[in-house]
C-alpha cells in the first residue's frame, strides 16, 4: 500500500503532491482525483514558475537579438534542448527538434522524409494499437505515393504478435512506425527487438514515445531508433511543446518542413540557403516559454528519479489491477506481461460514457471512449473503455476511491 502519508523508496508522495497546485482543488464538491494522466499530466509549481519567470523576466525573441534579454532567452531555450538531449540519450543536441508535440513530430517525418523517400509499391508498417496520430499521417502518405500500409496485429492479451510482424517485413518495407507504450492498453512494446528486425530488413523505425517518455528510461542510441517523437505535456511539462529526435545523418539529408524565418541562412528573391540542424526544422518564432519550462519538467523527473517513479507507478498499477478485478462484471482490456501505469476496462452491460459521467460527479477524472484508437477498439469488438492512468502523484487511496466510485456507478446504472 502506498498511502499519501508514506514514502516509498525515498519518494515522499505527500511532498510531491504539494508541488502540484491543481491537486488541491475540488471538483463537484469533492477533492479532485485525477486519473487521466495518459491524456495529460498535471504541472508542478516549478514548471508554472518557469513560464511566469520567462514572461516576467526575460521575454525576447531568440537567436537574433544582441540585447541582454535575447541572450538570456536564447541561453535558456538552448539549455532546455541540451537537457532533453540528455533525457533521451541522444548523441547531439542538434538531433533535438522542438515541435508542438508528438503529432507534429510524426507529421514532420511523414511530410519530409516520407515524401522524399517513399515511392509506389513501398511498404510502411504500423501496428493495430497505434494512436490515430501514428496512423493518419502514414495513411495520407501511402495514398499519395501509392505505397502500402501494413498493420501488425494485436493479440488478445494486448501484446503485438511478433511472429506476424516479422512476416510483414519485406525488402519493400521502408519504415516501421510503432508506439513504445499503448495509450489505450498500457502495453509496453519490445521496441529494441522491433527496431533490430526492421534494420535487418533495411527499414527505418519511428517510435511514438508520447506515452513512454514519462514512464520508461529512454535512450535513443541504445534503442537505435531512427526517429523518436514525444510531447511535453504528458511528462509534467506544458502543452504545445514536444520533441522530435532524429539521427543526425537522416535529418541532415531530409528536406525541410516549414519555410520561414530561423530556418534560413540567406534569402534572396532568386534563392534561399537553409540553416543547419536543428534550426532547419524550427521555422518561425518557436514556443520559447514552453520549451524553457519543459526543462523544469525534466528536472522534476530527474530529481525524483525515473526508477523510483516507475516503481511507484508499477505498485499503483498492480494494486489497481487487483482491486478492479474484484469488481463483478469488470474485464480489463490489455493484460500484457509488461505494462505502463495505464489500465483500461469495460463493465458488462454498461456503456463507458455512463460510468465516466457518474465518476466525474464524484470528483474522479478518468478517460472514457475509444482513446483515439478506433481500429484497436474494433479489434476488441468494443465501443470504448474506461481508462485510469496513474502518475507519480497518485496514491492507493485514490485507487480505493475509484473502486468505491465505480461500485456506486454500477449500482446506479443497474
Amino acid at each position, binding site marked *: 500500500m502506498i498511502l499519501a502519508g508514506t514514502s516509498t523508496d525515498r519518494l515522499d508522495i505527500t511532498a510531491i503532491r504539494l508541488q502540484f497546485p491543481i491537486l488541491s482543488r475540488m471538483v*463537484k464538491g469533492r477533492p479532485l482525483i485525477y486519473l487521466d494522466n495518459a491524456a495529460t499530466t498535471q504541472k508542478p509549481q516549478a514548471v508554472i514558475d518557469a513560464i511566469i519567470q520567462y514572461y516576467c523576466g526575460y521575454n525576447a525573441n531568440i537567436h537574433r537579438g544582441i540585447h541582454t534579454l535575447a541572450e538570456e532567452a536564447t541561453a535558456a531555450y538552448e539549455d532546455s534542448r541540451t537537457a532533453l538531449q540528455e533525457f533521451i540519450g541522444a548523441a547531439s543536441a542538434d538531433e533535438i527538434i522542438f515541435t508542438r508535440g508528438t503529432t507534429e513530430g510524426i507529421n514532420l517525418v511523414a511530410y519530409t522524409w516520407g515524401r522524399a523517400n517513399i515511392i509506389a509499391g513501398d511498404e510502411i508498417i504500423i501496428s493495430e494499437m497505434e494512436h490515430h496520430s501514428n496512423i493518419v499521417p502514414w495513411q495520407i502518405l501511402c495514398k499519395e505515393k501509392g505505397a502500402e500500409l501494413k498493420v501488425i496485429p494485436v493479440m488478445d492479451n494486448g501484446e503485438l504478435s511478433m511472429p506476424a510482424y516479422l512476416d510483414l517485413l519485406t525488402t519493400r518495407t521502408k519504415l516501421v512506425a510503432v508506439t513504445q507504450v499503448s495509450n489505450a492498453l498500457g502495453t509496453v512494446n519490445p521496441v529494441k527487438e522491433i527496431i533490430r528486425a526492421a534494420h535487418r530488413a533495411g527499414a527505418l523505425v519511428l517510435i511514438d514515445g508520447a506515452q513512454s517518455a514519462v514512464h520508461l528510461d529512454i535512450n535513443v542510441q541504445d534503442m537505435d531508433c531512427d526517429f523518436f517523437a514525444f510531447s511535453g505535456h504528458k511528462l509534467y511539462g506544458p502543452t504545445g511543446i514536444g520533441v522530435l529526435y532524429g539521427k543526425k545523418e537522416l535529418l541532415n539529408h531530409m528536406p525541410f518542413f516549414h519555410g520561414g524565418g530561423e530556418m534560413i541562412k540567406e534569402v534572396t528573391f532568386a534563392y534561399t540557403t537553409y540553416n543547419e540542424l536543428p534550426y532547419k526544422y524550427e521555422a518561425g518564432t518557436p514556443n520559447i516559454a514552453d520549451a524553457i519550462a519543459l526543462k523544469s519538467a525534466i528536472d522534476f523527473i530527474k530529481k525524483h528519479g525515473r526508477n523510483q517513479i516507475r516503481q511507484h507507478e508499477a505498485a499503483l498499477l498492480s494494486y489497481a489491477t487487483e482491486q478492479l478485478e474484484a469488481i463483478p462484471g469488470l474485464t480489463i482490456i490489455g493484460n500484457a506481461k509488461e505494462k505502463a501505469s495505464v489500465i483500461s476496462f469495460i463493465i458488462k452491460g454498461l*456503456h*463507458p*460514457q*455512463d460510468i*465516466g*459521467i*457518474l465518476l466525474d*460527479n464524484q470528483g474522479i477524472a478518468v478517460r*472514457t*471512449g*475509444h482513446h483515439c484508437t478506433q481500429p484497436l477498439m474494433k479489434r476488441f469488438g468494443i*465501443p*470504448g473503455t474506461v481508462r485510469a492512468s496513474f502518475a507519480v502523484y497518485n496514491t492507493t487511496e485514490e485507487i480505493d476511491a475509484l473502486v468505491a466510485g465505480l461500485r456506486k456507478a454500477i449500482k*446506479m*446504472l443497474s
Partner: protein
Amino acid sequence: MEKDIAAIEEAFIESFSFLDTWEEKYEYIIELGKKLPALDEQFKTEDKKIKGCQSTVWLVASYQDDKVFFKADSDAVIVKGLVSMLIEVLSGQAPDSILNARLEFIEKIGMHVHLAQTRSNGLRAMIAQMKDYARAFKIIHI
C-alpha cells in the same frame, strides 16, 4: 390537444426541483433512459446515426397532421435519458414550435454540462438534427 413546449419544459423543471442530490437527478435520468422504448433494429442504420465521440444516438422523424414526431435511442443510458426528455418536449409539436424552442430547461435542471462541446455525446448534434427535420418538414409540407 397536446401540451405546448413551455408547459412540458416547466414540468421537467418542477420534477427536478424535488431532486436534491446529483445521485437523485441522475437516477431519474437513468430511469427515463431505461423506460424509453428501444428503437426497432431496422431504424438503427448509418443515416439515422448521430455519432458523438463516445456514444451514439439514433434519431427517426416522421410527419403527421402538421406535427413532427421523433423516436430515438442511444447506446448509453444517461444520454438516452436526456434524449427521452427532448423527445417528450419536442415530439408531436408543429415545425415552427420546434424551430423556436430554446430548451432552457436543460440548463435549469443542471444538465447543460452534457451540451458542452467536450462531452461530444451527440446531444448537441441531436438537437440540431431535430430542428433540421422540423425545417425540412416545414418546407415540404407547408
